[in-house]
């Protein structure tokens, strides 16, 4: 990690100095990496001609899909663009100083004390071997006395809203929840009282309720007079928070302006696409991806008329927690899924969603209750084996669900084989399935690890469809994907209903996704189903307190 060489483009003309409120002024920022070139040998600019201005007390949001260059841009601001980075700019001022000739030592003075940075990977951005105090203290004045240090750390922790700060400061990151870790990280970023706070996707890994809290915390930082750069791939997250927004696409800024203006009257296609791709109440019954084919059919027959294919009756599962205590991961869970129906299961992390999914697929034996699939008692392995392929699972981590040695063809063949014995026919069917999930034919002999995330998820779906299952359980199939890719997959799932008449249990922590897709909704909280009903009904008129708090925390565009 060497300090990036910053050089000014030749014909740069300096703009007149702006008001002292301007913390950062960047014009024509370009970043490329030594190891990455275009096929013709020229530099590929990961960040290309970016202009950026940060003002004291204002929140500047940067949005764009994965790989669009958001993080690189942000990291350039502290001179840590990455190994082998080449940074050029027509103008690069920070706190009124031209940083073009900064040495590593100069940059170091800037980091922490003038610019606080909250990294993207919240859960792994704190050293697991250091206590919270040790971590935060690293950004403090080293001459501070021990008690002074402890006091300051406690103050900071309290400031970011961590309960029992006196206790927590002596704990290790793994002893904190994700939200608390994110707060501690912010505390460490503001320890040196920087004028500028950069938060790179501070809420990606968090539950909606916690996400809301963290966003509020960041807004508070701006209110205190700091400049804030908030990076997110999700427009709705920044919609109500930011003052200005930059939309990045393939290293370029495609649109910028006050946040309401950009959302309400997007001028660039890409922005429009991004906005359209956000699932939620408004998008129900609509295609999310603009380039997707139009909807195949719309549902006609009322679902409640049809006999249920999955019946979950009073299912419970308990684990032995530490100290021998019993921990109920699922309790008294009952619901039915009918053919052609999408049942959405929402709930925060740890509420027991995956546990239910595993029980329904038969991968986990319930401690209480029973699951009946198509009239067969599903918890016993004997009856399940007799009806192999009736239930299929689409996992969140699709890569992990593929045998690493198998090609796409072999993966899909695993299920197709259950229905089609003949090899030639089978290959034809596999090709069909690939086509159905819109995978290019040349992916067939590739290994999944050489595919993109969206493509992998498609393989996973194709595999699940291979044996024409009557029940499809999707456990967070889109939570690792970009909004635009997510949009395509959600459209695809929507099509499945029309094509296959399978019963779908769709699990997500994202209420927007469930609201967009599901017919019926189950809300899970601490292993129990706290609310159920028709999707629109539940989300517009929640009766349960928990559901209500969940919904109010969801950011809307």
């Amino acid at each position, binding site marked *: 990690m060497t300090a990036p060489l910053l050089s000014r483009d030749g014909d740069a003309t300096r703009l007149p100095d702006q008001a002292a409120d301007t913390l950062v002024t960047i014009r024509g920022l370009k970043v490329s990496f030594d190891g990455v070139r275009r096929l013709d040998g020229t530099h590929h600019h990961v960040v290309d001609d970016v202009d950026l201005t940060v003002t004291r007390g204002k929140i500047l949001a940067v949005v764009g899909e994965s790989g669009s260059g958001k993080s690189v841009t942000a990291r350039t601001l502290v001179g840590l663009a990455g190994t082998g980075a080449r940074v050029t700019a027509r103008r690069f001022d920070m706190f009124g100083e031209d940083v073009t000739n900064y040495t590593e030592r100069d940059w170091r003075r800037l980091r922490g004390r003038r610019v606080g940075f909250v*990294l993207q990977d919240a859960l792994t951005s704190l*050293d*697991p*071997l250091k206590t919270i105090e040790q971590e935060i203290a690293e*950004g403090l004045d080293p001459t501070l006395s021990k008690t002074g240090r402890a006091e300051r750390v406690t103050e900071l922790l309290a400031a970011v809203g961590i309960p029992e700060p006196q206790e927590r400061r002596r704990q290790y990151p793994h002893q904190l929840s994700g939200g608390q870790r994110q707060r501690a990280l912010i505390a460490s*970023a503001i320890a*040196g009282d920087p004028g500028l706070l950069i938060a790179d996707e501070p809420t990606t890994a968090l539950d909606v309720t916690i996400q809301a809290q963290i966003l509020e915390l960041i807004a508070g930082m701006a209110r205190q007079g700091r400049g804030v750069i908030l990076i997110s791939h999700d427009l709705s997250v920044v919609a109500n928070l930011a003052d200005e927004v930059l939309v990045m696409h393939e290293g370029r800024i495609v649109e910028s302006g006050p946040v309401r203006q950009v959302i309400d009257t997007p001028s660039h296609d890409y922005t429009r696409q991004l906005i359209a791709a956000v699932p939620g109440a408004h998008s129900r019954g609509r295609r999310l991806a603009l380039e997707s084919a139009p909807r195949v059919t719309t549902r006609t027959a009322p679902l409640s008329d049809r006999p249920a294919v999955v019946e979950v009756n009073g299912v419970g599962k308990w684990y032995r927690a530490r100290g021998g205590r019993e921990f109920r991961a699922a309790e008294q869970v009952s619901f039915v899924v009918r053919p052609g129906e999408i049942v959405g299961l929402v709930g925060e*992390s740890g509420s027991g969603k995956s546990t239910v999914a595993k029980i329904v697929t038969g991968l986990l034996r319930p401690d209480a209750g029973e699951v009946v699939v198509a009239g067969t008692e599903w918890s016993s392995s004997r009856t399940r084996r007799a009806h192999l392929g009736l239930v299929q699972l689409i996992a969140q981590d699709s890569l992990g669900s593929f045998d690493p040695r198998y090609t796409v063809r072999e993966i899909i063949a695993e299920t197709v084989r259950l229905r089609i014995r003949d090899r030639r026919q089978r290959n034809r069917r596999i090709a069909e399935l690939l086509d159905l999930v819109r995978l290019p034919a040349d992916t067939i002999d590739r290994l999944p690890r050489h595919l993109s995330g969206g493509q992998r998820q498609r393989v996973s779906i194709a595999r699940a469809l291979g044996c024409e299952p009557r029940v499809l359980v999707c456990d967070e199939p889109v939570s690792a994907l970009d909004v635009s890719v997510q949009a395509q997959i959600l459209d695809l799932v929507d099509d499945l209903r029309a094509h296959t008449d399978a019963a779908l249990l769709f699990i997500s922590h994202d209420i927007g996704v469930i609201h967009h897709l599901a017919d019926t909704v189950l809300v899970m909280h601490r292993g129990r189903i706290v609310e159920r009903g028709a999707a629109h009904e539940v989300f517009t008129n929640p009766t349960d307190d928990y559901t209500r708090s969940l919904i109010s925390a969801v950011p809307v565009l």
Partner: protein
Amino acid sequence: MSIAPPQRPAEVDAEHAESILQVSAAARVSAHRRFVARYVTEKVLSAVFVLWAAASLSFLAVHLAPGDPALMLMGEVKTPELRATIEADWGLDEPLITQYLDYFGRLLSGDLGYSYVQRVPVNEILFGPRLLNSAKLTVFAALLAVLLAVVVAVLSASRRGPGSALLNIVELTFASVPSFWLGLVLISVFAFGLGWFPVTAGSELQKLILPGFTLALPLAAVLAQVIREGIERSLEQPYSVTALMRGISHAQLKRRHALRHSLIPATTLAGWSVGGMLTGTVIVEQVFGRSGIGQATVTAVRQQDIPVVLGIALAAATIYVLVNTVVDILYVWIDPRLKAA
């Protein structure tokens, strides 16, 4: 090769720990104590089990091997009188189970048996000045190896260039050269050629230097590679970047964060290192004419002095198990995440 590598907790576990974390601070402290107590007890019990099994294996080796145990225990010079003595000592005419219990009784009282070849109790061969000598050598070499490895690894981590390539070759060479060969070369060059370090004369420390390096260099080479890899891996982690974002320097980053992380894989090697040291002494002591356990081993194997060989094997196993147990327990200190497991 560590005994039952400690399970690393998955990152997600911590998140679900939330509800448990809501309990009071006092309860948390006592839960922590209870965890440490249970963990330590587990490790100690498993160590005791391994030692018991190792001792039983030694017993079986004598009794189940083809041939007459008395003949085997005698060594090379076999006489009827000696046979009678051995039969009496080992109670060879009694049922096997009685012998086994006796054997354990003796082991527990610290009696490793009697060498009929050297005509002294095995304890005397092992635990006299020999053990002290070997301990001096191995401890010196271990410290040297760790020091060398850490310094080299920290200085060379995440540097690229001809220097690092050369260093890599040097490390590979030290890790791949037969240790007796290394010892002879070191002696030729530094003792006889340059006359820097004596082999047998001089102070104890002077005498330790060459054998110490012979033992330490291959180990240091391997350790340095592991530690460097650990450091480099750690430097790529988000927490390292976060630390840089606070304005610390690279040197500070390596020292404060990365080194400790690299110790986790490096300590896993502790068992392997102990094994390497113990066997290394066998060869190094031979080369340098140092007395010690290693030399006693070779002599005993040559003389078919089975009681001594078994005694040494048991002692080595004990040292090995002890060190590994200590290392396992140290893990809790190095890696606080373990407590969440």
